[in-house]
């Protein structure tokens, strides 16, 4: 194979896209021709550079735009979910709220009973009444109902609430 022909076949040689006899001939020529070897390396580096390009990300909203071009609203993540069935996240949230509503009073009640046993019922009630009377969100009428207005006055709390 002469130099002129070899030079034209270098890309195909690089890609191993030559017939086997041509591959062998090109290889023999390359062994004797530094010019072709340099040319081949340049082509190889160019191919490598092109192969190293990263795929750009899809533009934002690609799928949504595609659906609108198809004349359909983009399906949300739950499009496949039957509407009458609670979605798992919703179902879980409802279950969690149920648990909280049941568990918090139960645990609180248990803690109060333990503390009352510890300090004695009188002191516990007194402290509880004081704490509740100071709670800015607590309804005074309710505290009075539980502890009686007289008891609140006894511990120095005004049943009608702090003077504002």
């Amino acid at each position, binding site marked *: 194979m002469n130099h002129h022909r070899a030079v*034209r076949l*270098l*890309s*195909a040689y690089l*890609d191993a*896209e030559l017939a086997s006899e041509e591959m062998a001939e090109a290889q023999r020529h390359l062994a004797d021709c530094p010019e072709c070897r340099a040319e081949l390396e*340049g*082509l190889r*580096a*160019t*191919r*490598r*550079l*092109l*192969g*190293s*390009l*990263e*795929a*750009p*990300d*899809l*533009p934002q909203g*690609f*799928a949504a*735009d*595609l659906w609108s*071009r*198809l004349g*359909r609203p983009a*399906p949300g993540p739950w*499009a*496949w979910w039957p509407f009458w069935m609670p979605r798992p996240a919703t179902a879980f949230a409802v279950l969690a709220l149920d648990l909280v509503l049941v568990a918090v009073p139960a645990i609180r009640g248990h803690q109060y009973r333990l503390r009352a046993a510890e300090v004695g019922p009188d002191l516990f009630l007194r402290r509880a009444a004081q704490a509740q009377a100071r709670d800015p969100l607590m309804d005074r009428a309710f505290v009075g109902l539980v502890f009686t207005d007289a008891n609140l006055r006894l511990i120095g709390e005004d049943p009608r609430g702090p003077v504002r």
Partner: protein
Amino acid sequence: MARIQEQERPADPQDDRARFEALVERYGRRVYAMAYRMAGSEADAKDLAQEAFIRVWRSLSRLRPDVPLEGWLYRTVTNLFIDLLRRRRGPRIQSLDEPLATTSGELARERPDASADVERTVLGAIVDRRVQQALMSLLPDVRMVVVLADVEGYAYEEIASMMGIPVGTVKSRLHRARLALRGRLAPFRDGLEGS
């Protein structure tokens, strides 16, 4: 057996949508990337990629789920790009100095945490931009061959069938493309040599 079920089952629109979504998810980025390398602008690339997927949607019932769609999609994008060039009447020659829409913003946004990564990403974005500019300086027919061969990694035979040209033409166009790019990209290419 799966195919028999396929035919017996009545068309379910929910099912089609899920299948289509999965296809966009799976092939969207690569199809868009190839369109971008060919067309050189994000707007054209998006348009071409979406047009290709619209064709997928229209022939969804005829596409067999077990056959990879890649070749079909690439062929479609290639043909759509040829149509686009025809509509615009002839190749648009782009100057190497002309600012080019790139994805560098996207790339920088991709990994905002590590500074070394950002540096590498910025460098990569510059090289990417230069390579894309060099690609755009080629004639579209030549560019398509080199994108399919060297960016996407297709064999000559596959490219010939995608573009509807003889293998010999693929061979000569690819060689021409590489020779042109080799000259234009020498500084970046040599920088890459060590790695």
